[in-house]
């Protein structure tokens, strides 16, 4: 393992170090085919149905941010992992690890948020757990969730389905969540119109699968590590390359300016209400239309295509029509002054 013998913050960043941690310690220990597929939800056969099962943990700081809070994030994030796997979410669990001393009002607000998010999507939170740890043993509040759903019969998603010529759609602007969180961070505070895109993508995912079935080859929500991480995961697991076009990628100018201010590459920044969809070329326009007709997909855009490639690479055509490679992000983006 790189970077010494201790866990670094970057190991949790969804980038290269996370990937290494999973491949070198976690996968070998639990060794099974389902886990090794590294999908957003695990698929387990149950009679004639496929159950999708996912889990996630939320440690976001600050707890409250423009556009949401950790409660809403936890519910939407878990629903999203099920939705992008082609499942109809059925139920969630929600467990709390609370730091001694957290104000009850804060907890109530977050729980209320989680409840509201679940209600919006009509998905019950059916079980959970509560633990309290001593002051300074956890940072105010951590949330762990799990979710189950039933795979839609028309969903035929998987890395192996991706083929040269397929198109890539992103369902809206990138970087909103990550930059919103950054703007609250100690030492980086600035006020802004930035707003997290924290939202459920269940509607978009269900609609595109319902309408287009196996023409939808693959879906993933580009959370930590951003669009760059998701596209690299795709090329690493399928036998293709990807080409995207910088000018096609939807970005909110305020978000871009904030990223520029801190020296970040917007492609590496987290999203919490977007989907990357890989769709067959003949159904791309239709898929785009469906996305744009959904609440969270108004700014959906076609950003690139899957290409023939000897190496698993993501290549970007820049705004001046140059070319560069988009690497898997490190996992901890540090603000720069230089």
């Amino acid at each position, binding site marked *: 393992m790189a970077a*010494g013998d201790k866990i670094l913050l970057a190991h949790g960043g969804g980038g290269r170090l996370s990937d290494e941690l999973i491949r070198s310690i976690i996968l070998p220990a639990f060794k099974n085919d389902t886990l090794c597929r590294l999908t957003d939800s695990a698929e387990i056969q149950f009679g004639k149905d496929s159950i999708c099962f996912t889990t996630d943990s939320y440690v976001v700081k600050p707890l409250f941010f423009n556009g949401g809070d950790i409660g809403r994030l936890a519910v939407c994030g878990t629903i999203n992992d099920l939705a992008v796997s082609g499942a109809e979410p059925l139920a969630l669990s929600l467990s709390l690890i609370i730091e001694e001393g957290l104000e009850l009002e804060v907890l109530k607000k977050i729980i209320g948020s989680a409840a509201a998010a679940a209600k919006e999507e009509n998905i019950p939170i059916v079980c959970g757990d509560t633990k309290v740890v001593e002051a300074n043993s956890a940072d105010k509040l951590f949330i762990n969730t799990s979710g189950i759903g039933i795979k839609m019969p028309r969903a035929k998603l998987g890395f192996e389905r991706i083929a040269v010529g397929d198109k890539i759609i992103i369902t809206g602007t990138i970087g909103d969540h990550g930059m919103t969180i950054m703007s609250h961070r100690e*030492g980086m505070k600035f006020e802004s119109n930035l707003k997290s895109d924290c939202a459920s993508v269940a509607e978009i995912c269900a609609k595109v699968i319902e309408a287009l079935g196996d023409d939808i080859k693959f879906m993933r929500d580009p959370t930590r590590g951003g669009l760059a991480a998701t596209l690299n995961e795709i090329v690493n697991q399928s036998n293709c390359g990807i080409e995207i076009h910088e000018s096609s990628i939807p970005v909110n100018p305020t978000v871009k300016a904030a990223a520029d201010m801190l020296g970040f590459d917007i492609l590496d920044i987290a999203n919490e209400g977007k989907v990357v969809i890989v769709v067959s070329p003949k159904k791309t326009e239709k898929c785009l239309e469906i996305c744009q007709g959904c609440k969270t997909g108004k700014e959906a855009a076609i950003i690139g295509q899957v290409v023939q490639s000897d190496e698993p690479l993501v290549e970007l055509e*820049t705004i*001046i029509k*140059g070319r560069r490679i988009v690497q898997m992000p490190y996992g901890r983006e540090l603000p720069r002054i230089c």
Partner: protein
Amino acid sequence: MLERINRAYTQIARAQKVLGRTVNIMEVCGTHTVSIFRAGLRTTFPEGLKLLSGPGCPVCITDQGYIDAVLSLADRDDCLIATYGDMIRVPGRKGSLEQKTNKGNIKIILSAEDVLKLAKQNPAKKILFVAVGFETTAPATAVLANEAFRQGVKNLFIFSNHKLVVPAMEALLSEKNHRIDAFLCPGHVSVIIGSDAYKPVVERFEKPCVVAGFEPMQIIDAISEICRQLADRKPEVASLYRAAVTAAGNKTAQKIINETFDVSNGWWRGLGKIKKSTLKLKKKFSHLDAEKQLGIEFIPEEDLTGCCCGEVLCGLMDPPDCGLFATNCTPETPVGPCMVSSEGACAAWFKYTLKKGKVDGGRR
């Protein structure tokens, strides 16, 4: 846009003809290196143009002795380290600040002002400010030093390693085997020092010095202008970043730098000792000077076997030519700072052009 690129092509061809070989332009500024790579500019230029990445990355040229000294202070319980994010992953001989962040005494700051706030919020701690950067960043440190002085702050210590760009450019041109035909000069350093600061370089060495902004078409225009000068054999200083850069620069900033710092000799990773190239706090600020107050011991720089950062910084080598590039030396396991800093030549090459161990297209 197309005419712009065509113009550049024409001038590159002219310059190539006059020189009788490839045109070598050194981009001194690390932020230019990143802009060039992000825009995929190298892939739009013909074979006849080579862009060399110069020592304009403050993180890359920070000598190992400095980093080791910061790391040893990070181990002390009475110290809080205030640093710009750029320095977190720079490797010393015993790891980097990133590996020490679990202690909670390393604070990433975006502004020198934050350091003052930290000092006031933590009166029982000694706050060490890792003051790196070129002339763009030095004035902020100068303001901090003056404010701390005025307010009688006792627990703030500035560890200055601010470097000056023009001495480095001249040192490079004094090397016998340099390949530099011209400089693409840093946009924001020039805001402070003024474009006239490059006149001595032109007068002594007859190399074009063109200041550019950071947008791709500004860089393309600057390359056009450089090649035109080379083709016409008329090297001069030109600023194409007129929105921000004047001939004289920011006089207020220059004044505060002169009042706060002395210019001394300094050690640059890869370039060795360069005379009159580093800013150290004046005597008046001794009580704020980390080197004088915190028992810092500079341990001479260890030779990193196989690391070619020095040659890369001087434009004598491309990153892929280094034996350690993409093998032992990667962004996860950086050997030299050129791989750590996001604007280090090696990191930029790795990120933007590497194809699984082989390097593609960007070899210009």
